[in-house]
C-alpha cells in the first residue's frame, strides 16, 4: 500500500488536536500552507515531539537533514517529505 502525504497530514492533525484547538483552528479546515510555528501551534520542542510521534507511528527513522527549516513547520511540506521518506524506507 502506498503511503500518501494526506495520510501523514491526517496523523499530524490528529496528534496536534489539542494545540490546534488552543489556537482556535479547526483541523478539518486548515490549509496545507499552515505554518505550525507561526500559528503558535507548536514550538521547537513540539516539533521534536511530533517527529518522535511520526517515526513511531509509521515505524521508520527519518533523517531530516536535507529538509529546509520551512519544511519542518509547514504542514503540507512536512507531510509530503515524511510520506516520501517513509515510502523509501519501506523499499517502495
Amino acid at each position, binding site marked *: 500500500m502506498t503511503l500518501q502525504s494526506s495520510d501523514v497530514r491526517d496523523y499530524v492533525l490528529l496528534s496536534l488536536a489539542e494545540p490546534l484547538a*488552543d489556537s482556535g483552528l479547526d483541523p478539518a479546515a486548515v490549509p496545507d500552507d499552515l505554518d505550525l*510555528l*507561526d500559528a503558535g501551534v507548536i*514550538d*521547537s*520542542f513540539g*516539533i*521534536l515531539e511530533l*517527529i518522535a510521534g511520526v517515526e513511531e507511528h509509521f515505524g521508520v527513522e527519518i*533523517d*531530516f*537533514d536535507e*529538509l*529546509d*527549516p*520551512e519544511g*519542518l*513547520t509547514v504542514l503540507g511540506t512536512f507531510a509530503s517529505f515524511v510520506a516520501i521518506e517513509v515510502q523509501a524506507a519501506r523499499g517502495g
Partner: protein
Amino acid sequence: MRPLYAGFMRGVERFGSRPALEAAGRTLTYAELGEQAGAIAATLQREDPPDPQLTAVFAYRTPVAFAGVQGALMAARGYVPLDRTYPVDRTRRMLERVGCSSIVCDTASAEQLPEVLAGLEGARLVLAPDHPDPAALAARLPGHRVLGAGDLAPATAWTAPDVEPDALAYVLFTSGSTGTPKGAMVTNANLRHYADRMAERYAPAEDDRFSQVNELAFDISVYELFVAWEGASCLCCPSRRTLIKPGRWIREAQLTQWFSVPSTAVFMRRLGELKPGSYPTLRHSQFGGERFPLDVALAWLEAAPNGVLECVYGPTETTVVCSQHVFDPITSPPLCEGGILPIGDPVPGLGLVVVDDELHEVAAGAVGELIVGGPQVSRGYIGDPERTARSFVVPPGRNAVHYRTGDRVRRPVADGPFVFVGRVDDQIQVFGERIELGEVEDALRRASGIDAVAAIGWPMGPAGPTGVEGFVGSEQIDVDELRAKLRGTLLGHMVPRRIHALAELPRNANGKIDRRELANRLEATS
C-alpha cells in the same frame, strides 16, 4: 576605563566597509550601523535628560535592535532590552521597574507601544528610526514624543562621553520567585572585565563571523554583541524559523563563532544536523545556560572538527560567564558526573567558592552552594533592595560582596574543574531559560483562586527538564480556561504544558506539597 562603545567605534573607524551585521535579510557595514547608532546616540544626548541613565531597546532581530544597544552606550546610558514576543503586561512591568524615559523601537515592536505605555506615568521619548510613518505612531501615543529617522540628530553631532565604571551597561530581567521579575544591574566595569577576558581568550578578528542566536533579553547575547564588536567581526542574526533547524544557515553564513544553549545542539542532532564534518568553518563553539550532556558534546565536536568546544557557566548576576571548560574527548569524559560536562575553571580574576549553609567553604570534593566574587559581580536587582540583600552577601572571613548562585556545585579536587550538581532552590532551567517554579505557582494561584497549587519541571530530557507541568488542588477547575489565563500573564515557556486538577495534592512530612511525588505520578502514567 575604556568605554564599552570603543570596540565598536574602532570597527567604524578602521573597518568601515566591512560587515558589522546581517539581520532581517540585510547586511550593514560598520560605517552604516555606526551611522544609525551615532544618530540615536546624538539624539539621546540632545533630547533625553541624563538621569535616569537607562534607555529601553524595544526591537526584535532587526538592525534597530543593534543600533539601539550601541546608541544607548554611546550616549553613556545602559540599555534595557524589551521583547515584543513577551506578554505586553510583563513588558509594561519591566518598563515601570526601570523607569527609563527613552525608548528606541523598531516598527513591529512599536505596534505594541500604545498598550505597553497605557497606564504608565511620565512622558517618554520614543525613537523610531525605521518607522515608515512616525506621525501616525505619534498620533497613537498622545503625551509622548516620537522621533522618526528624519527627526534624529545627525551622527556627526555625537560627542564621545566619558563613562563611569559604576554606571549601568544594561539591566536584564530574570524570573523571580514572588512573581515579579528581577532586573540584574550590570555595570560598565562588569562588562568591560568580561569582554576583555573573552577578547583575550577568543581573539575575535574582522574576518570572524559570530552567530547571534540569543534574544537580547538573554545574556548570552551580550557575548555575541560585545565580543564580536571588540574584534570588528560580523554578527549574523537569523530569523526565529532558521533557528529551529540552523544547520544549513551555519554553513551558508560561514560562521566561525557559535554560542547557544545545549538544547539547540540536542535538537540539531535529532534532526540529523550533527553529522561528522558538517561545520568546518566553526573555530569556537560555546554552550551554556543549562546542563551540557557528554554525548551531545562528542557529536558536536565531530560535526565541528576544526574548532574548540567549551562548556561555560554563569548567572546573569555575574555577567554572562564565570567559568569555562574546554572539552577534550579523551580527558573530559572521566570528569563528567551523570553524563553532564563540568562547568570548568573560573574566568581569570573571579573567585568561585563552594560554601555550606553558613557560607563557609566546604572541603575539596564536597558539594555546596556556589558563590561568586570579583569584578563581574553586578550591582544587584533594580528597585529591589530586599532580594538584592538576600542574594548579594559578604561571607564571613571575606571582605567583598559575593553573589549566591543558588546552584549546587562540587568543589574541585586539586586542579580539577568545578562540577554542577543541581539547583539549591526550586529554580529550574528549560532550554536555558530560567524558571522559578514559585513564579509559575504564584500565577496558578492567582488565576485559579486555589491555594494548593504546584509546578514541577517535567519531563526530564538529557539536558534537564524540558517543560513545566502544573497542578491545582481542586477538581472543579476548568484547566483549559486556566491555561488560557496563564498565557496572558506568563512567558510562553513558563506556561505549564498541562494542568492537572486533583482533589488533593500530596504532601510530605513537613506539610509541604510533595513535588517529587507529583513527578512520580506523572512518570507512572506517561
